[in-house]
């Protein structure tokens, strides 16, 4: 069947002698040919579609509507001065639309084509920090925004298990520290205390080989730091944020190199699992400098991310 639809208008019309109007989340009704012109007047995104069923048409309309409204609500957040509750409602609705209609890719793609006002970067950063669910959309518009969900903070459940042939971890409780508005060592589980991992080594790998692996891990970390660019002022470099996709690439590369070194050394050992290697890259064993954070010194040879 042939139909017209417009995401902006939020209506699809099945064409025919008696056109059937199907509004998003509304009741369908029968209209006239003249109604079509009035309904779509001024909407530039009207398109003709051919679909096999009404449900497919509704789905297509829903997607088009969701893409339009998600973008528009995002612009509203960036341009407006809403109160906190309204902001939260808007952010949640954006997230709901994107998730329900599965349009994240399309929205992100369209937003990356927008030329935003550079003066909005700061607001975008604040919104991204406040609302995880829309952070990646904001990052699509403003590449300077670090998507909250892509931030590499310490996530304790990603650290290797203790059966690793290479490294082990032990946990020590920490008090959350606040640095320039960020909460370090965030509570990982709901209601849990804050913990941080402390890396230890085992004797499974020969000492000489451990140094090779250490070097590979350091180089992976350095490549992430350089791709990230400047870190936020006031924070130790190890607390900078990197894109999770960049981290994944660095982990893959490091793993391949370690596997090659193991083969070259004739060692019948597997390279560290990805999750473990990820933790190793994020939790540097070589950050031994003292850092003043919120006025307190951390002088132990421990690793933070």
């Amino acid at each position, binding site marked *: 069947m042939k139909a017209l639809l417009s995401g902006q208008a939020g209506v699809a019309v099945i064409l025919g002698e008696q056109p059937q109007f199907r*509004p998003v989340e509304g009741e369908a009704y*029968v209209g006239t040919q*003249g*109604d*079509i012109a009035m309904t779509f007047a001024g909407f*530039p995104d*009207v398109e003709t579609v051919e679909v096999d069923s009404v449900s497919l048409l509704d789905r297509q309309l829903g997607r088009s509507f969701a893409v339009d409204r998600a973008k528009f*609500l995002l612009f509203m957040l960036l341009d407006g001065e809403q109160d906190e509750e309204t902001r939260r409602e808007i952010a949640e*609705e954006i997230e709901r639309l994107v998730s329900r209609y599965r349009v994240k890719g399309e929205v992100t793609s369209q937003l990356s084509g927008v030329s935003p006002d550079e003066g909005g970067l700061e607001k975008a950063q604040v919104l991204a920090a406040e609302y995880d669910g829309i952070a990646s959309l904001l990052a699509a518009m403003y590449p300077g925004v670090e998507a909250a969900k892509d931030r590499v903070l310490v996530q304790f459940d990603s650290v290797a298990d203790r059966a690793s042939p290479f490294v082990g971890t032990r946990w020590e409780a920490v008090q959350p520290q606040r640095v320039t508005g960020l909460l370090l060592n965030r509570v990982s589980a709901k209601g849990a205390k804050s913990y941080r991992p402390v890396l230890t080594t085992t004797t499974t790998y020969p000492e000489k080989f451990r140094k090779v692996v250490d070097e590979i891990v350091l180089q992976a970390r350095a490549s992430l730091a350089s791709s990230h660019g400047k870190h936020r002022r006031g924070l130790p470099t190890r607390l900078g944020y990197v894109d999770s996709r960049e981290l994944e690439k660095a982990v893959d590369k490091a793993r391949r190199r370690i596997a090659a070194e193991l083969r070259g050394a004739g060692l019948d050992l597997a390279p560290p699992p990805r999750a473990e290697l990820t933790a190793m890259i994020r939790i540097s064993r070589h950050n031994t400098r003292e850092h003043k954070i919120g006025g307190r010194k951390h002088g132990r040879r421990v690793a933070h991310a």
Partner: protein
Amino acid sequence: MSDACPTCSRPVKTDRRFCKFCTTDAGLPNVRYARRADERSALKRRVSRARLAIRRNGTIAEHARLVAMMDASKLVINRNVRRLASWLARDNKLYLNFYKLKRLGEDYNEDQWNFQRSSAENAVNPMFYEELSIAAVTADTVGMSYYGECSIFIREDAIAVRTTVFEENPFTFNEKHSVIAGKMAPAGYRATWADRSVLATAKLGADLKPGATTDDLAELIMARTRGAADCDFIEAHVYGDIHAECIETVVCVKPKTKADRLIWREQKSRLVAMGIHVSEIP
């Protein structure tokens, strides 16, 4: 088909406002078109026939009330909250029709719908349809919310001199009168804003019923519901852009989706901040 310049009598093209020879303001194209001799005489003939019917039906009093209601009627634009929001968000705060948005470079789908939408409009307003903002005439407090939940009432002083009224939706009109590509719309179905009650007489006079209430008359002027047997209205054509400050009142039926309710909340604040009266229908 050109009009004569009032100063030098040379022809002024249908879609032009100023005489190219002496630069006299010949008047807005749609208003000039409605004032043409053939249009006025054809309308006059229709009015005469309608008056005969009014006398025959015994609806002289109802007709008088219809005229009074039409003289007090308002111009209303019905759009959804999304469209209203785009309008208010624009830096210049101008309501732009599809053709103007296209000229400004706004993206649109290359679709047969967009290719063909102008043909009906051009048949009714030849050559100058792109300059018109389309609205409707209403005698009550709500427009046609089935075309958009926001009924946006425009101040009369902002549109009176540049608006004409037309019998009905051009798509319906062209079908009824077999106006096909290449044919001109028949004369006698339009009037200036000041003469809108004359057009209403021609169109609705014969349909008046004895004892018709104010509600009945308002429903005749603009059908309120989708279920109406003849979902009908008198279309209004405003030449040029409409600035948001020309909005007098906005009446909004509660939007169905959460996203639109959020957008409406924001627009309501904007409108109130602009001193525009806002009301809501649950």
